[in-house]
């Protein structure tokens, strides 16, 4: 036992106030207080010593051990080769970190130079970041090094492959290798045939390995039965039914669920076994206004065009001019009447996309004159003369990275680099609340489809669930190894999905705060998420220029759609659920045939195959439209299935 370890133990004893033991140990080990303090100062964190990379291993042994392992992988049988190959990267990384930690950085660099370039392409980014660390001190506080240090790298491996590996390790008795595999790798075993290279590649690439062991919990991905569309069609009836059948003490009536839900769809899912109980998440009160809104939505939806390969969507593109490098985000209301844009210079702008102007509420004195008994009180309270086509909201203190409208279009949320979320009123056009909680810039914020709740994603590696009337978050979703870049509510509002720079997509349960799914397969940070209308599938896109489609029932990767050339920033499912649109920095809009994809994936029996084949999406690409030097930042399908795109004209790059 060396001194640092002893001092760590001493500190631990001190921490738990075990004075007696501490003194005895001190006496036995002949350690004076001074020395203790010294060594403690050098390595402040106890954990970093206990779980760190302290190793007596001969620095020369590492390369030999790695070469040996590589040889073993190469000479093993083809069916096991690729699964075994998956351990090479984590082993190399840990070897490097261990060497750097023990002041043999030159050896580590040599090792990396030799074997780094032959790692899979999706690990090269990590290796580049790792290359920054050439000193022990650098590891402290480095996101990547800490992730590797404090988390076991998960490798999915078949039982046969694992036993093969174990046998090899026993034979070789290489302590370096054995320790690394013992300490830093976790083998997630399964029964069955080992996977091939493409199967591994499809789900590999995330920071922390390929995780699927969380994906056993049941996810209520269905949409609970909403109000009957027939009663909705006659709003007065609905009103009566609500008053008669509803219990005033219980605000969470089933009928109040899913105000925004598509009535055409609800017919199909009347008895969806996968839907959560309606009162799983307390829902806000169902107001008259919401009913009228729902009625309008139903009427609109009946005029909807069903899209498909034979009926392609029309796309109206709103281009923001003079917006070079100043616009960060854009969002369109559910009924496509307003567009909100967040700017680099801390302001927000709201445009109206319909002939109705943006009106402000009357002043307090004028409001007293309004007859509150009147049917159209909501109209009367607005000042007719105040109509404008665009309005500016000022208040943030840094670039506005995301905006989100409430379902009733009276509220707007925005999040910014200044670590705050602001709630704005779209009736009096001022800021109502500032939510402070995140410590670092906030990348994304989204209103729940029910309203009332919202979720945020931040640089501080957490996502949080909030309610508009609470100034503190209700849930804190921690577990990502890197920034949480984007967040999206499940259509049934029971879950949120997050995409992160650790290249994982997670699904979190709002009711419990637990992680319900972890899905790996992206090779770069994720910037966009979209749920399918039936709630079962999740599409994600990011800097790796791929759109990945996940089945939430099992957490499987269903398809991988490639074609974009730059970061994908927006995804949208059509209202009919047949078509998926994606757009990004490469100035193109791509339309994918989602219904065909579903048909083909449903044809295969998902449950039988343990590792379903990932479909390549190229055959599902229906159309590709280019814009004129205008990166797309938002996509939205109107209730009638007209596609609206928001683009930034980049005049500088012509």
């Amino acid at each position: 036992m060396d001194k640092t370890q002893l001092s760590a133990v001493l500190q631990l004893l001190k921490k738990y106030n075990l004075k007696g033991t501490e003194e005895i140990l001190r006496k036995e080990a002949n350690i004076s207080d001074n020395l203790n303090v010294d060594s403690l100062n050098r390595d402040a964190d106890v954990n970093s010593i206990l779980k760190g990379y302290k190793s007596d291993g001969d620095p020369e042994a590492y390369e030999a051990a790695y070469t040996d392992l590589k040889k073993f992988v190469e000479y093993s049988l083809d069916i096991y080769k690729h699964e075994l190959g998956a351990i090479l990267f984590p082993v190399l990384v840990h070897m490097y970190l261990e060497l750097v930690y023990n002041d043999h950085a030159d050896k580590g660099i040599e090792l990396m130079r030799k074997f780094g370039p032959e790692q899979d392409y999706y690990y090269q980014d990590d290796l580049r970041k790792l290359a920054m660390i050439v000193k022990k001190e650098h590891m402290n506080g480095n996101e990547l090094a800490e992730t590797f240090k404090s988390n076991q790298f998960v490798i999915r491996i078949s039982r046969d492959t694992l036993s093969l590996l174990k046998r090899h390790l026993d034979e070789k008795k290489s302590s370096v290798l054995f320790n690394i595999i013992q300490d830093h790798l976790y083998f997630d075993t399964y029964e069955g045939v080992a996977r091939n290279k493409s199967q591994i590649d499809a789900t590999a690439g995330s920071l922390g390995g390929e995780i699927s062991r969380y994906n056993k919990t049941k996810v209520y991905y269905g949409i609970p039965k909403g109000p009957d569309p027939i009663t909705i069609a006659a709003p007065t009836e609905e009103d009566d039914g609500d008053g008669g059948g509803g219990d005033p003490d219980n605000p969470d009536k089933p009928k109040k669920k899913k105000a925004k839900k598509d009535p055409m769809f609800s017919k199909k899912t009347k008895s969806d076994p996968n839907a959560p109980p309606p009162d799983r998440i307390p829902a806000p009160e169902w107001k008259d206004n919401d009913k009228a809104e729902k009625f309008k939505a139903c009427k609109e939806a009946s005029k909807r065009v069903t899209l498909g390969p034979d009926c392609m969507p029309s796309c109206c593109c709103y281009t923001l001019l003079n917006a070079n490098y100043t616009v960060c985000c854009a969002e369109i209301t559910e009924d496509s009447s307003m567009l909100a844009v967040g700017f680099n210079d801390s302001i927000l702008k709201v445009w109206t996309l319909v002939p109705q102007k943006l009106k402000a509420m009357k002043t307090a004195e004028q409001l007293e004159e309004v007859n509150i008994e009147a049917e159209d009180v909501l109209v009367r309270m607005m000042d007719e003369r105040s109509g404008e086509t665009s309005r500016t909201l000022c208040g943030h203190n840094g670039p506005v990275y995301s905006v989100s409208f409430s379902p009733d279009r009276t509220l707007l949320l925005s999040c910014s680099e200044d670590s705050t979320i602001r709630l704005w009123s779209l009736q009096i056009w001022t800021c109502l609340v500032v939510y402070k909680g995140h410590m670092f810039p906030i990348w994304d914020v989204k209103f729940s489809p029910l309203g009332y709740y919202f979720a945020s994603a931040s640089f501080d590696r957490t996502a949080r669930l909030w309610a508009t009337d609470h100034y503190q978050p209700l849930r804190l979703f921690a577990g990502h190894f890197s920034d949480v870049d984007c967040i999206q509510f499940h259509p049934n509002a029971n879950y949120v999905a997050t995409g992160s720079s650790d290249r994982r997509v997670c699904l979190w349960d709002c009711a419990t705060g637990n992680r319900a799914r972890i899905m790996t397969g992206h090779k770069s940070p994720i910037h966009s998420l979209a749920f399918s209308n039936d709630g079962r599938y999740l599409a994600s896109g990011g800097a790796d220029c791929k759109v990945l489609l996940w089945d939430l029932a099992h957490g499987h990767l269903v398809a991988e759609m490639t074609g974009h050339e730059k970061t994908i920033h927006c995804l949208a499912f059509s209202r009919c659920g047949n078509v998926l649109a994606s757009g990004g920095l490469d100035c193109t809009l791509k339309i994918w045939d989602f219904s065909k994809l579903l048909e083909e994936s449903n044809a295969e029996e998902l449950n039988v195959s343990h590792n379903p084949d990932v479909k390549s999406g190229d055959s599902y690409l229906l159309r590709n439209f280019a814009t004129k030097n205008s990166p797309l930042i938002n996509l939205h399908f109107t209730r009638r299935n007209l596609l609206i795109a928001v683009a930034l004209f980049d005049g500088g790059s012509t």
Partner: protein
Amino acid sequence: MSKINECDLYGTNFSTESMKVIAESIGIGYLGDDAAKELAEDISFRVKHIIQDAAKFMNHAKRSKLLQTDIDSALKVKNIEPQYGFQSAEPLPFRFASGGGRELHFIEEKEVDLNDLLHNINPKAPLETTLRSHWLCIDGVQPTIPENPPPVAKVIQKLESVDPVKKKPLKETAGKPTTGKQKLKNIETVQIKQLATHELSVEQQVYYKEITEACVGSDEARRAEALQSLASDPGLHEMLPRMCTFIIEGVRVNVVQNNLALLIYLMRMVKALLDNQSLYLEKYLHELIPSVTTCIVSKQLCMRPELDNHWALRDFASRLMAQICKNFNTSTNNIQTRVTRMFTNALQQEKVALSSLYGALQGLSELGAEVIRIFILPRVKSIGQRIETNYLEGNLVSNMEKIASSNIKSLLIKVLAPVLKSIRSPPDNLEEYKQEFGYMGVSLHSAVVKARTQPTPATTGFTNNPITCSSTISRTVSTPSGIIQQQTSSGSRTIVMNTTPRAQMAQSNQKFVFVTQRPQTPMSSSHQIQQNAPAGQNTVVKFVSNTNQQPKLASQQKLVVVNSNQGNVQGQIAGSPGNTVLISKQNFVQQQQSPILDDLSQLV
């Protein structure tokens, strides 16, 4: 640290020298090697970290360019005070300097005049962000409107002109329904070349009809609209062959009929097409240049030459020609050289009509000062003589000739005065002028003297940059006059244009020949096989097949159109004598081939 490889990720650090320079700049006189090394390593690590974080801010602002504000935000996240005052209008504010064996990058700090700052209290406000909507696609088809990118990019249009088969797969991704059947299979290396027919949709046919009617119709407002459409519409490339045919056929007919108005309208169409940014016009130049040339140098362009202002048409067409030369001249197609030679040849003819002479002079003068100096100036005397005779024997010559003479005279004075002013030194001797320029001497002298007294010379007429001109001239001198060779053998005629050294030919891409004959030719089953230059990526043997379906615009498609992207052109046609009509349209100096150039043919 020893020698660091720039491309190496590991241990890419600032040099210790940089550290020492920076230390010096903030007043630390001596920085030890160890300290510098330690600092360099630490600072490199921190800077890399900051850049890594700054990239996150860039990504979330949906940009692909890192800005100073991103660095500031990254610093803020690390709880470091941002570096204020580094906002820069330029993308890279660094200047480079070297000297004394040291290389240095520095930021230029300009002195700011406080007075300027105080007086400009209101700096220019940034433009407000505005919203504009357009249809990106309608029912899955992208409309060709200026807001959308051209359906086929210029690069692809160019490629298409070289190899039409390549067009098919590209078309599929361009927002049109996939049919799949058009995919041609590559069987070994032999491809059967299909004739690339440009089928026009009904809408396009209507558009074509409307546009052409409007362009030559009597309604000036409609014409302006139509020309505007031609000049700005991005989706015209499919109709371009038709448009060009319309223009050349129009010129052909109207020159014979001396319909000045229509010729002007047609030239305006050419102008509109030239102005359209999204069109790849190069492959139609061989058709357009002869037509434009006709409008410059034709002997007669109107019914009443003594009354109508056909001079304006010649001026306008000359400007068009200059624009063509400016836009499309490359070192391989030598358009400007060839145009210059053509006009110069006309000048040298003794019996050329005065109107043609005027056109040739105008055409040359639009090509720039250098061209004027070399090609017009030496001939001023002889031209002067000719004009003089007209004036002297005033009774004998027609009124028309008189007008022509005075026009030529004023043209010469207008274009020569600025040139003479710049090449001659101030004491202008009248006698010298008389001696050198003969009849024109007196007028030129007074014009030059007048020009000297005016502070700003009028040089607006020169569209070309003198530097390009001089390079052209030197080429003109160096290349032998046999740029166009015509070999007539018993059965076949080969037109080899623009002969360039063999080595250059080997470099360029393959050259393809597409031949379709008129249906009456007995060659329908005969094939011509052409082997390609060895440097091509794959040797492609081409069967140039004939289709009996006569396309609507037969005159358009019977031609040999050869174009490689280097502009290196070789056309070769074999056929039985008499039956094959050979027109290499690029060979626009071959006037005897086309009847419209009757007037011009006299010039050669």
